[in-house]
């Protein structure tokens, strides 16, 4: 498939068939991961800069592993070591990165729209690894890929996204992508943690978790940032865990074989019970391995784009 996009800013840019092409490519890389030697020379000589202006361990490591398995050279620029802490503007950082002539930049930033800001100014591909509350397309793709591996097809399935939707780029991208793939989306969380115009989204809204889980095929738990309580959005964690934390009794209300996902890192006993995180229905570790192959597929498609023109 000829890849037309320079940048991956959000899943809204992708057509259904492009998503399928990503899954197909990821599927091929997954076979590779079962071999003793997991590395291929596909992107030998190409370079990827991992620019993380916000702390992240798993996404950054995932991209790093993905790049290295494709033989690309990966370079990390983290906020703690970058000049961003010395007051350099994002524009200047962008120009500096540009001058190093990478083939792709993976950006994580705490401001919504930061990936677009970079993409507008750089000639290389920009892959959004999470911008503020806005979008996290690679997470949504790996979540959908994980479910796709389980079910073969997401069409007609019902997926519940549970927790802090308002501050979640994972939720925003997932609502768009799941709808694109034909799934029915439900959202559940306290009103204080829902986006103001959530009712205009293509999702059914619940404030009662017992109601929300009835008949769902998968539940995606979101991490609760513990500072939400200090911001006056929640009374306390105990009340949140007892009201919106996913527990065994909810699984019993859902469809048989309900799948449980979580983008990590977990707050055990807050948004998900410890028992559920470790149970057989949990796909949490499958998500991590999907993450590597989906990111391999993305790096491959975006970085070989020019060669196909």
């Amino acid at each position, binding site marked *: 498939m000829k890849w037309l996009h320079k940048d991956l800013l959000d899943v809204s840019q992708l057509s259904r068939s492009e998503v399928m092409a990503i899954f197909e490519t990821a599927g091929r890389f997954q076979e590779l991961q079962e071999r003793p030697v997991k590395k291929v020379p596909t992107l030998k000589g190409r370079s990827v800069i991992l620019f993380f202006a916000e702390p992240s361990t798993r996404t950054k490591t995932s991209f790093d592993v993905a790049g290295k398995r494709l033989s690309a050279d990966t370079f990390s620029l983290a906020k703690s070591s970058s000049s961003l802490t010395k007051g350099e503007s994002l524009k200047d950082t962008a120009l500096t990165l540009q001058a190093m002539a990478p083939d792709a930049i993976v950006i994580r930033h705490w401001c*919504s729209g930061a990936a677009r800001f970079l993409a507008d100014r750089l000639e290389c591909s920009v892959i959004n690894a999470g911008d*503020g509350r*806005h979008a996290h397309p690679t997470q949504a793709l790996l979540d959908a890929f994980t479910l796709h591996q389980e079910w073969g097809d997401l069409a007609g399935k019902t997926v519940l996204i549970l927790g802090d939707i308002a501050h979640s780029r994972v939720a925003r991208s997932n609502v768009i992508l799941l709808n694109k793939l034909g799934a029915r989306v439900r959202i559940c969380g306290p009103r204080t943690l829902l986006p*103001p115009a959530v009712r205009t989204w293509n999702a059914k809204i619940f404030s009662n978790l017992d109601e929300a889980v009835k008949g769902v095929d998968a539940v995606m738990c979101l991490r609760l940032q513990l500072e939400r309580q200090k911001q006056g959005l929640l009374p306390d964690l105990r009340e949140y865990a007892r009201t919106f934390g996913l527990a065994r009794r909810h699984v019993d209300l859902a469809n048989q074989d309900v799948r449980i996902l979580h983008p990590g890192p977990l707050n055990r006993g807050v948004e998900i019970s410890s028992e559920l995180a470790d149970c057989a229905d949990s796909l949490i570790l499958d998500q991590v391995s999907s993450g590597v192959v989906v990111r391999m597929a993305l790096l491959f498609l975006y970085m070989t784009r020019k060669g196909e023109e």
Partner: protein
Amino acid sequence: MAKIDLIVRRARLDGRDVDIFVSRGKIEAVRKSVKTLDPGDAKVEEAFGLTVLPSLTDVHVHLREPGFEYKEDIESGLRAAAWGGFSNIMCMANTKPVNDCAPVTELMLEKARRYWPKGPRLFPIGALTKGLKGKELAPMAELARAGCAAFSNDGVPIESSKIFRNAVEYASDWDRVVIDHCEDPYLDVAAGVNEGEVSSRLGLPAQPDVAEAMQVSRDILLSEYLDIPIHLAHISCKKSVDLIRFAKARGVKITAETTPHYLTMTEDFLEAEETEYDTNAKVNPPLRTEADRQAVIEALNDGTLDCLATDHAPHAVYEKEVEFDVAPCGITGLDTALSVTWELVREGVLTRETFIRAWTTAPCAIFNLPVNTFVPGDPADFFLFDEDQEWIVTPEALHSKGKNTPLMGTVRKGRVKTHFIAGKKIV
């Protein structure tokens, strides 16, 4: 007839070709244009093919001097005003130091006299509280004597209703109106984006329209209770408009302004393909919905909103070329306001009467400023205007140092050719 100093020949005034006679800075007569005329000793300005409009008044600008001269200074701000058609400019107090004592006011007036001795006229707005901190009243008697035409805590809403009430009462002793920037101090202050569908999709912290409307209702109730006028700055939404209309119907002495951007733009701009997350459209209060825009237009036409103001808020290019969350709020407006609003008159969105009232008679009545209605004795403040001249908004085309406008790159219609203030040609 008194000795005529200036005759403006064959200018188009509200559909008529007129000759305007000026004596000692004042309008002496406006007559139907004649073919030939002996000017005597008077200067003659040929205006054939040009429209003449009374100079505009802008009661809400930020000129940034002293303290932020890299964004704008009094010289460049008044130049933008002169070319923008404005003869009276009221500048806000959020300078550094804040305009909360006579020396700062005097410095502003001194700079204006030095760089633009013939106008535009500068009328500083004094701080309502010391340092705009909302704790102690500013010395308003001193500020009024130094030349402040009004008082405001613009941009920094006063949290305490008690302090605000005291300030409104104290200001009234010096016959000065208080201008309030209506924004609940706790509901996501200065987010620069409207809370709603667009902000939810873009994932931006946002300000709901009720944050404005709640303060509007507080001010209306206080104004009514104290029987003292209060002027509401830059009204942006339908909820506020409805409250003001209801208040005026029962005789509350409330007045209000809106800006060209609330008449012409909506939050959708921030989600459009080319301008997604464009920080030049980050402004406080934020661009609202189409329903709000329509309500603001209707309210301006029916007089619920008294006047127009630019809320001219220049910033350096590099300050706006940053992440959306980091960018300061504000749109530069003095250079574009006339074109944008006259286009609305031509399109039939605003009536000519509304335009004239909103930019001249209403603001001058509220703040007691000189105004030209082309009646003998009025100050000879007017400009000659080529309605059809197209121009492109480029950084070079703007006289202001502030280039932060979402209109950058667009084609506008209408340019000031010559501007007279008190009968003297300023540009």
